């Protein structure tokens, strides 16, 4: 039986009905729903960025008992739009990325010395993924991780993320609009209808 990683108990992010959810090791749950239905709000609340009711539990430890910075490194959120505050890409990364990861995302080894002002939206998206994964999280909250990518890169990112989830025994909550992508990556599917997340 797979080990439970993340559990939500009557979790209330403010605009959805309180939600119960369990994600296991190596499991990818896809979340879909119309824009503005509260998917991003739910992810932000799980990452402890927005006020919320109920409780989130990581491997038996309640969110309320873990300091927020530590929780956010373990339950890491990739937002729809990435932000860059320093001059070069490398300054945003806690450690130098593995060569295999750079290759898998079709990024050259010198990508860490790139100036962030000159990044394309696709490069930003892939580097943001690299950045969030370099925290070595246990749960990945992915807000449309392939939205800014062409189909080649989208397929690359998909394969890379799925392999990470399987090999490093992560739990993933993946927001996607693309039925074909959901078909490829989802172990379970949640759909938001009329303010309520339902299994489908």
């Amino acid at each position, binding site marked *: 039986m797979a080990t439970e990683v993340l559990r939500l108990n009557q979790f209330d992010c403010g605009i959805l009905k309180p939600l119960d959810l369990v994600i296991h090791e190596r499991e990818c749950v896809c979340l879909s729903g119309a824009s503005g239905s509260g998917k991003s709000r739910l992810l932000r609340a799980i990452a402890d*960025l927005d006020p919320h009711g109920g409780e989130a539990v990581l491997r038996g430890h309640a969110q309320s008992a873990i300091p927020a910075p*530590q929780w956010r*490194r373990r339950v890491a959120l990739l*937002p729809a739009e990435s932000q860059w*505050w320093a001059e070069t890409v490398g300054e945003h990364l806690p450690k130098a990325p593995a060569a295999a990861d750079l290759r898998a995302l079709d990024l050259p080894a010198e990508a860490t010395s790139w100036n962030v002002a000159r990044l394309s939206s696709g490069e930003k998206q892939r580097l943001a993924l690299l*950045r969030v994964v370099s*925290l070595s999280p246990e749960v990945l909250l992915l807000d449309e991780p392939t939205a800014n990518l062409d189909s080649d890169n989208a397929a690359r990112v998909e394969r890379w993320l799925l392999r990470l989830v399987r090999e490093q025994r992560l739990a993933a909550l993946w927001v996607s609009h693309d039925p074909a992508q959901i078909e490829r990556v989802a172990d379970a599917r949640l759909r938001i209808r009329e303010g309520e997340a339902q299994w489908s």
Partner: protein
Amino acid sequence: MELISLSIGSLSLAAGLVVLLALSTYWAGLAVERSLLIAAVRAAVQLALIGLVLEALFAVRTLPWIVLMASFMLLVAGREVIARQQRRLAGWWGFAIGTLAMFISSFTVTVLALTVMIQAEPWYQPQYAIPLLGMLLGNTMNGVALGLDRLTEGAYQQRQLIEARLMLGAGWQEAIGDIMRNSMRSAMIPMINGMAAAAW
């Protein structure tokens, strides 16, 4: 000690310069002569009133009254600092932070100067204490108003960057550290300029 007193003639000369300035701005079409004259009259009336208060205070010379006067000056300075802020911290915080910072810096230095350097008898002799405190409060007011304004404005402008850093597990000190250091640096510029120019 011989006090230098100003005659009515020399005061009229100063007032005449203000009237001349008002006339020049009128001829130059700057349309500020009205507010200039009003400000000048207001300043004269205020200074006369302060003169009356100080005269009474210098006559009484007891510690409780001097403390009362000093607290009043501090509160006025605190109010002025808040008035300079474009974006204020919610609740009492904005006022309390600025006022406390000014209290600690200017009161400690005033007491140090009075007791160790001037060594007046008693140390709180208002002829020394009040003008000294006034000068120190004026200087710290500049620094605190600039520093707070840069801090809140920076936090507002870069709120998405701050949030992105929090998202990646940074503590608040790290997430807002750059803005804090920059605002402290800006706050010290007037003082450093003053000392640098004095050295010539």
